[in-house]
């Protein structure tokens, strides 16, 4: 398999958030600080890669009629494991990500990749796909959370850049998430159309 092509797809042309518009809920909710963005991104990369590997391994065993149920059980298993491990060894991160770790179970990116890629491709390709799509998701989280944290609270990854009093608290609120994500999607569509690789 072509690692470079898959990486480019995950980060740009088939970016899960900006092009496939999957996983919007968690992207909007947790991107109030870069630390949250990295934590969530890493959790999704790990879960997505593991679930892709196992669903690819099981793709010939799982009957078509019960595939969605089987995928969800596999994904929920990995999510719960990551959740337990985070709570045990990274309590602060687990506290700030809160309910969004368990909610990775219903994050459309994971089920979407299981259904559209891992169930049709080999183990290695699926693992690479998991990493690349996960990286694409993480990249978007990082950009959105960096913009929101800087403009909203004057910090980057917890380091004060300018006093919080001058920040626009609106950027930390949900509305800020919609604004940044909307602008980013528009920018992405514009860039893809310009290079003639996206859209129609």
């Amino acid at each position, binding site marked *: 398999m072509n690692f470079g092509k898959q990486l480019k797809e995950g980060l740009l042309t088939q970016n899960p958030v900006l092009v496939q518009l999957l996983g919007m809920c968690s992207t909007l909710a947790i991107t109030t600080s870069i630390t949250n963005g990295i934590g969530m991104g890493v959790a999704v990369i790990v879960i997505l890669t593991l679930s892709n590997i196992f669903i690819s391994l099981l793709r010939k065993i799982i009957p078509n009629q019960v595939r969605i149920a089987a995928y969800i059980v596999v994904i929920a298993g990995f999510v*719960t494991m990551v959740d337990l491990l985070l*709570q045990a060894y990274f309590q602060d991160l687990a506290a700030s990500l809160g309910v969004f770790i368990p909610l990775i179970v219903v994050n459309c990116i994971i089920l979407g990749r299981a259904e559209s890629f891992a169930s049709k491709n080999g183990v290695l390709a699926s693992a690479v796909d998991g990493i690349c799509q996960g990286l694409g998701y993480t990249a978007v989280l990082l950009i959105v959370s960096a913009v929101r944290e800087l403009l909203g609270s004057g910090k980057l990854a917890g380091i004060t850049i300018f006093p919080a009093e001058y920040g626009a608290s609106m950027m930390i609120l949900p509305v800020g998430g919609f604004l940044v994500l909307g602008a980013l999607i528009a920018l992405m569509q514009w860039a893809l159309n310009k290079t003639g690789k996206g859209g129609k």
Partner: protein
Amino acid sequence: MSNENMTAEKLQIEPKYILRLAGTLFGICLVVALLLGVVNSFTGPVIEQAQAEKTAAAMQQVLPADEYRPMDQLPDGVLSMNEAVSGGAVTGYVVEVAPSGSQGKITMLVGVDAETGTVTGVSVTDHSETPNIGTKVVDDPSVLARFVGMSHDGGDITVNAGTNRFDGVSGATVSSKGVTAGVNTALAAVGTLG
């Protein structure tokens, strides 16, 4: 696909195949459940210990004591209550309450002196208040410290009004009222002990 086709397809499913469907799903669930059991068996104690340590540290912060004894009889609106014991005598109570803030429950510990009935400390252990707004109340020890020394001698504590007054944070009135309600509940709970 039309309805007719669906029925035709359904009829073709043999009992054997149905068993295979159920069997595969059961097998996957079984393996996942086993793995989760293994993970839980070693993370469970770590999580429990960390939470116990966190609670103990918060208790020491609101009302330092040698020992905390959980109480069985809980007044209304109180999640848990501990007697703080120092040198063999009950010096006060640590009351856990969860009033509503602006985004959800604010779980907090309130230390109350047994003799004077005054607040010795307030610590918020869990909340989902708005960053940069509600957090100016719940994450700021200097704001929470304003409760120290207050009591129910002058009636319920009110926010930005009355004589028994708590000065809230402007812009975060709902969160300020939330923590105040929690302190009031805690003081009332200790008051019922007589």
